[in-house]
């Protein structure tokens, strides 16, 4: 009985009938209670889960497509300072909210304010700001970052003291280098991430393009969907880290409501190491989806189910075909 009415409130008549059945059949009462307990637990857990994820709500514009050549950078630092240099022609302009210390004093920043060399930013929750050149910087909760500028030229230096950093650089802008005491990581026009752990090692993960990981012991170049690790006194080595999982924390909570599948596919490409291949008919197919906080591969599976398509996978390339 619970199962037949759980999706909508019971009527007075149904409740009266339930009362009669409970009074006359103890075995039914036992089954009913078991069902109710499962129903309550399921609802409680799913509500809690839904509270942390975007819902199926309309009226939100789909995200703009980022340029394929844009670069993203993730730095995970746990007790190890990692520095990042960005060839940016302008100061950094804040468009999100961060708690900032300037000369040791709290600074109240508003959208449009400029950060100066020496400013130290703390993120109480995931915080995002946009650089004037169009690049996007995102800090994970609990992260601490020092902004700096080199004495010569316009190169900006970012030193991540703690936490995780995600950086997506606008197309055609400067190169990135990340320095740590164990090695340097240089982006060669790419989307990539870097992580350091408490064991004083640095991991780099590539979304798109190539990254050169260098230490005093050698150099390693990695490409799409690959990761590398540099430990103290060791040459860079390939690492078994999936960039799509490493960068999951930085993914926007996104809802597409009746948007073309092609737009969703573009968003997936901009937020993963995957490449989507589909014909123009499929690209025009309209879909609605709240992107859950699950690996992007599973998001692709759900989309395929929604539009009734099958997918063949070759490495990081997903080829869509209508079933």
């Amino acid at each position, binding site marked *: 009985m*619970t*199962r037949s*009415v*759980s*999706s*909508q*409130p*019971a009527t*007075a008549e*149904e*409740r*009266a009938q*339930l*009362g*009669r059945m*409970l*009074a*006359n*059949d*103890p075995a039914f*009462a*036992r089954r*009913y*209670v*078991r*069902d*109710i*307990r*499962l*129903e*309550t*637990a*399921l*609802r*409680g*857990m*799913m*509500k*809690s*889960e*839904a*509270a942390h*994820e975007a*819902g*199926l709500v309309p009226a939100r514009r789909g995200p703009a497509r980022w340029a394929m050549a844009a670069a993203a950078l993730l730095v995970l630092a746990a007790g190890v300072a990692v520095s990042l240099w960005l060839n940016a022609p302008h100061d950094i302009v804040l468009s999100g909210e961060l708690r900032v210390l300037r000369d040791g004093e709290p600074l109240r920043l508003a959208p449009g304010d400029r950060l100066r060399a020496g400013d130290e930013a703390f993120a109480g929750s995931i915080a995002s700001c946009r650089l004037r050149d169009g690049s996007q910087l995102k800090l994970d909760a609990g992260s601490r970052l020092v902004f700096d500028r080199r004495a010569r030229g316009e190169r900006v230096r970012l030193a991540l003291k703690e936490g995780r950093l995600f950086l997506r650089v606008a197309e055609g802008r400067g190169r990135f280098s990340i320095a740590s005491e164990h090695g340097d990581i240089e982006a060669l026009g790419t989307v990539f991430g870097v992580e350091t752990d408490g064991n004083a090692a640095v991991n780099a993960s590539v979304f798109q393009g190539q990254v050169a990981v260098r230490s005093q012991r050698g150099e390693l170049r990695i490409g799409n969907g690959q990761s590398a690790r540099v430990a103290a006194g060791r040459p860079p080595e390939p690492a078994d880290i999936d960039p799509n999982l490493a960068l999951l924390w930085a993914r926007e909570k996104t809802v597409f409501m009746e948007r073309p599948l092609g737009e969703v596919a573009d968003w997936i490409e901009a937020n993963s190491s995957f490449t989507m291949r589909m014909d123009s008919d499929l690209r025009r197919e309209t879909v*609605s*989806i709240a992107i*859950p906080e*699950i690996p992007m591969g*599973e*998001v692709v*599976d*759900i989309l395929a*189910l*929604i*539009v*009734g398509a099958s997918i063949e996978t070759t490495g990081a390339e997903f080829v869509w075909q209508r079933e």
Partner: protein
Amino acid sequence: MNEHTNREPEFLRLFTGARDDIMAYIYSLTLSHADAEDIFQEVSLLLWEKFGDYRPDGNFRAWARKMAWNKTQNWRRRKGETVWDPDAIAALGAAFEDEERERGTLTDVKAALEHCLVRLSAVNRLILQQLYGESRSYKTLARFLKRSVRGLKVTAHRVRERVGDCVERRMAQERRQA
């Protein structure tokens, strides 16, 4: 000041532990989540007001069920519904007590459920999340998934059956290991 004010920590401990069980009981009486939540608020206040009457060696869940039953009967009267026969409420109370004694509290059910939900495919989990977490209607969800309402109901029913069976197995396993 209420004479039981100094028992506040005890009340909070008992109430927090039994909260989900009380909600399940009220839902079993109303079969309406919205009404159950309203009644639950009233019951929560009543439990604190009457906590001075509760004996520390008593069964808090059974005591809370009596309060919830009274509140729900009042709710039925306000709605002009037939109040249940005492045999019905006795059978329901006994079934809840038997379940709690033999299988554990709702906290135990949730622990087993957590184990089972991670084993679901992403699509099936999405269906449950939308139906139970977001309270989507079958009609809305079917349109979203581009499926028929009937087909979605069948799928949801099967998923729920599978989850229910998994929870039963998991709880039985936990009891054997305890």
